[in-house]
């Protein structure tokens, strides 16, 4: 198919015309002459050249996705990671192993002198999974698509209008993307996915319903064929024949199975049983319970099923206790420091999580060099806790062992938690706090109720977590004074509600640092300011870090093969990088062994080359 034969949407064309300041059409002659083009074709490859294509990979998923659309209502569900994010390829990528930019659908790129514009030369071989070649117009269409109200996704509308300043077409395979201002790493911010304009021929106000269960073609290796979406039962992905990435560095020897079958099984116990019976090939085990239960299963003991633990390094959910500094006594730094030493999260990790998790050191961990390694969580130590409480005036123990101050006020705070599985370690925290003379009054609320209470800033202490994404830590939402206080018409200052600054941190100097961090222009500046901010936040002591899951753990039948490093540093999901392959010969051998009773040595491997605590 020639580029000019591909469908062009008249609505999109009209939209480009109406916004000439965003959509620019130029000629190859307009391309600046002094650009330095980069290709980075010498970076680490992470797949295994021995990988074989083929086979069917069976996997279980606990819920049927409410939609197969990539954007729009309900699209932000947990299946989208498997359906799109794992396979769709953008212009460039950070290498999950080294962090350096590697080519994606672009073969080479160049950053302008003012660091606001990135130029890309596209790979003409790249096709969508439905066979449509990817050209510059698909990137134009992507902006039209994401800025359109038809997708009913205000976040995308806002993001793709505000975070980008324009796109330029030089020819069918040369484009440039311009950012609104100078960024420390323009390549990261200009990362863009093409949208298949031919598939969206019928794009209009009825997009959410019309495309509800239609799989949008991607630049990746898998597509969903007609009839492969079995409602409430399974979704099957089929590999594209002669995928363009098979000959490209960084993409060859990956995405090996011919078919990926996601079976919908609602109960975790049942998924476990299906795995043991060999009905699914692999099991991503996040709960310690199932991980250790497998040790007693004959399939593991006889070596038919293998286990692997992989340490990864990426931003993690910030589990911990958020102290509302707006509340009485909690505004006192000494009380907060006392609280830091009075919560025995290590004991929670050792007992409730069987020593499998690690202590989180601070809120902004896992950002690589942007995380200050000198900031360490304060250990549990009742002696130091009591010393700080004494400084705050709570020096004497009452008859029940709880500290009291001069006025007879007891050192007692409410600890709000949601009703998830985690509520079960609350007694350990209460127990450990009592030793330090602190009373915790647990309050367990449903998640939405808890969240409402926290955002209204009505809690004393709350156990919660923020999901974290991005390349750099974002301090503004959680620690800037703008999100901490507001002033009423009559001049009274009060806690600002409905913001993510749930510790009500309102330090002016810290806020200035955060403002400078937000407009930092080089990575060095981002790092230096970030480290300083993290240290200050640590000194403020309004967040008690709890734990992090440093690993992902996989159990799989032995016919699944992995490269020698197993996974990638920055990936917490084995399907995301898809470097495994299925060995049919080994499958036959194993199935034969199951019949004859032949055994293999049990395999339980640990890959801790990326353990940040090494």
């Amino acid at each position, binding site marked *: 198919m020639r580029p000019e034969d591909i469908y062009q949407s008249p609505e999109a064309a009209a939209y480009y015309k109406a916004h000439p300041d965003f959509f620019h059409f130029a000629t190859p002659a307009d391309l600046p002459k002094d650009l330095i083009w980069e290709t980075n074709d010498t970076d680490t490859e992470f797949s295994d050249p021995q990988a074989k294509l083929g086979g069917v990979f069976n996997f279980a998923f606990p819920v049927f996705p409410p939609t197969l659309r990539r954007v729009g209502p309900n699209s932000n569900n947990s299946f989208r990671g498997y359906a799109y994010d794992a396979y769709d390829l953008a212009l460039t990528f950070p290498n999950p192993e080294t962090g350096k930019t590697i080519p994606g659908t672009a073969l080479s790129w160049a950053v302008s002198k003012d660091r606001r514009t990135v130029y890309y030369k596209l790979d003409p071989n790249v096709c969508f999974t439905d066979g449509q070649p990817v050209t510059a117009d698909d990137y134009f269409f992507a902006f039209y698509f994401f800025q359109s109200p038809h997708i009913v996704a205000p976040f995308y509308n806002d993001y793709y209008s505000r975070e980008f300043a324009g796109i330029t077409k030089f020819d069918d395979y040369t484009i440039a993307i311009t950012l609104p201002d100078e960024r420390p790493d323009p390549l990261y911010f200009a990362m863009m996915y093409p949208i298949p304009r031919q598939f969206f021929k019928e794009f209009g106000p009825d997009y959410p319903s019309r495309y509800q269960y239609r799989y949008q073609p991607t630049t990746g290796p898998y597509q969903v064929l007609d009839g492969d979406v079995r409602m409430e039962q399974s979704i099957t992905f089929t590999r594209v024949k002669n995928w363009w990435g098979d000959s490209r560095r960084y993409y060859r020897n990956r995405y090996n199975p011919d078919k990926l079958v996601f079976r919908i099984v609602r109960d975790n116990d049942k998924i476990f049983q299906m795995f043991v019976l060999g009905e699914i090939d692999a099991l991503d085990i996040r709960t310690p319970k199932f991980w250790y239960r497998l040790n007693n299963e004959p399939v593991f003991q006889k070596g038919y099923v293998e286990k692997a633990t992989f340490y990864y390094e990426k931003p993690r959910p910030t589990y911990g206790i958020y102290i509302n500094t707006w509340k009485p006594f909690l505004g006192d730094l000494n009380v907060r420091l006392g609280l830091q030493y009075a919560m025995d999260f290590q004991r929670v990790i050792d007992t409730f999580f069987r020593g499998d998790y690690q202590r989180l050191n601070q809120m902004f961990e896992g950002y690589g060099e942007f995380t200050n390694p000198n900031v360490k969580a304060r250990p549990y130590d009742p002696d*130091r806790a009591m010393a700080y409480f004494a400084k705050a005036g709570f020096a004497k123990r009452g008859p*029940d062992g709880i500290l009291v101050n001069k006025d007879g006020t007891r050192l007692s705070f409410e600890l709000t938690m949601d009703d998830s599985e985690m509520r079960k370690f609350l*007694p350990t925290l209460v127990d450990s706090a009592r030793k330090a003379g602190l009373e915790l009054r647990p309050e367990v609320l449903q998640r939405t109720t808890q969240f409402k209470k926290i955002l209204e800033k009505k809690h004393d202490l709350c156990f919660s977590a923020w999901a974290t994404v991005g390349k750099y830590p974002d301090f503004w939402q959680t620690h800037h004074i703008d999100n901490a206080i507001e002033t009423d018409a009559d001049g009274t200052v009060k806690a600002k509600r409905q913001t993510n600054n749930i510790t009500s941190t309102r330090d002016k100097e810290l806020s200035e640092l955060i403002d400078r961090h937000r407009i930092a222009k080089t990575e060095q500046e981002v790092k230096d300011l970030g480290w300083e901010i993290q240290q200050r936040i640590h000194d403020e002591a309004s967040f008690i870090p709890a734990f992090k899951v440093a690993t992902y753990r996989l159990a799989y039948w032995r016919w699944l093969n992995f490269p020698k490093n197993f996974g990638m540093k920055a990936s917490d999901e084995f399907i995301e990088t898809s470097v495994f392959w299925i060995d049919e010969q080994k499958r036959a051998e194993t199935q034969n062994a199951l019949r004859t009773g032949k055994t293999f040595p049990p395999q339980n491997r640990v890959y801790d080359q990326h353990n940040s605590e090494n």
Partner: protein
Amino acid sequence: MFGLKLNPNTRRKLQRFKSIKRGYYSFLVLVFCVLVAGVGPWLVNSRALIVKYNGEYFFPTLGRMIPGETFGLDYEYETNYRALQEHFSAEGKGNWVLMPPIPYDGTEVCEVREALVYQDGRYLTPHDKKPYADGTAYLFHPNGRTQRVWRVLDGKLHGMMYGYDMHGDLIEKARWIDGKLDHYTPLATGLSKEFTEPRIDQIQYILPYPNQPGLGGHILGTDESGHDVTARLFYGFRVLCIASVIYLAFTYAIGIVVGCAMGYFGGWVDMVGQRLVEIWSNIPYLYLIIFLSSILVPNLFWLMLIIVAFSWITMTYYMRTGTYREKAREYISATRLLGAGNIRIIFRHILPNTLSTIVTFIPFMIAAVVTQLTALDFLGFGLPPTEPSWGEMLRQGTENFDSPWILSSVTVCLVVLLVLITFVGEAIREAFDPRKFTTYQ
């Protein structure tokens, strides 16, 4: 009852109740259980009954918390009496500790530690002598804090080791590969560069909750949060007793007052009262409780009041009809002629004669409140999770079928309790039934 002299009729009913053996003995067993629950802190407690230390006697279950310092220990928080007991007997200086029969508290988190066995280069778990497959192993400071932590894989030390001082600060790191030390990094001054091997018999592992019965002295094992199941059951029963008392007191007070008033005064009081009761009874009560308790997180008293707010209605129906019937009798008219006021008539004459209704309902009301409270806790809308509760235990049990001791113990207790209450209820109903020769099947 109600400070009134029982009339012969009532006395006869009680006699009849006594003669129904199944119900009567159930009643005695229940009373015994409630009495036992009443002296709970001396039977099930992590505090010692008596401590003899340096010639002085202490009674920790009475009065205020006694810090460890008092007994020459190095901490000022509450004494760990079980540890003290071991400490004293090891010392052999004539000091002793007398613990209650079940030395655990309902809110206490207990962990069971066992020493790993070292054999042929591998660490084995003591009970089955199999290599410790994968997990964490510990060495503890004398004060109970963690000193060193290893990862173990297939019985061999493998992965990072971390060492902490008495205050919990990280002071050393080492890396082990396949049972061999790869490198050692001291992080604090004063530590020798040479790594000192731990004494092999000191490496312990922590048995994950829930622990099966018998381990670590827990007769019925521990639950998912590390609570002793026996202590949980016991204190859960106490909670149910207290709940029943609050529930009965309030439902009866409201039910009797409103029911009597409607029945005795009749007319528009009855008319308006009945309509209000009808409206109130049409509120979907379970949803309301769930809604209220999800935003309020009530303690026991408030939770009971919420339940009471919707359960007094049934009582009013019976009291209303009972009062109507008695009021129409001639002796009431006679009393009135003699000049008795409303108050006197209601309390001296009508109430004693409706007693059978009131008494008959007590056991069934108790059974109802036990199931309601348990159901709410089971659904997670009841008491805070640290409070001992049978409903919470049932929930844990159903989430952990592979730890059957949780579910089985609480189910047995619940069934036995409800059966006993029902037996008593049947007996009372039969005893108070005016038709003497009917049998209740």
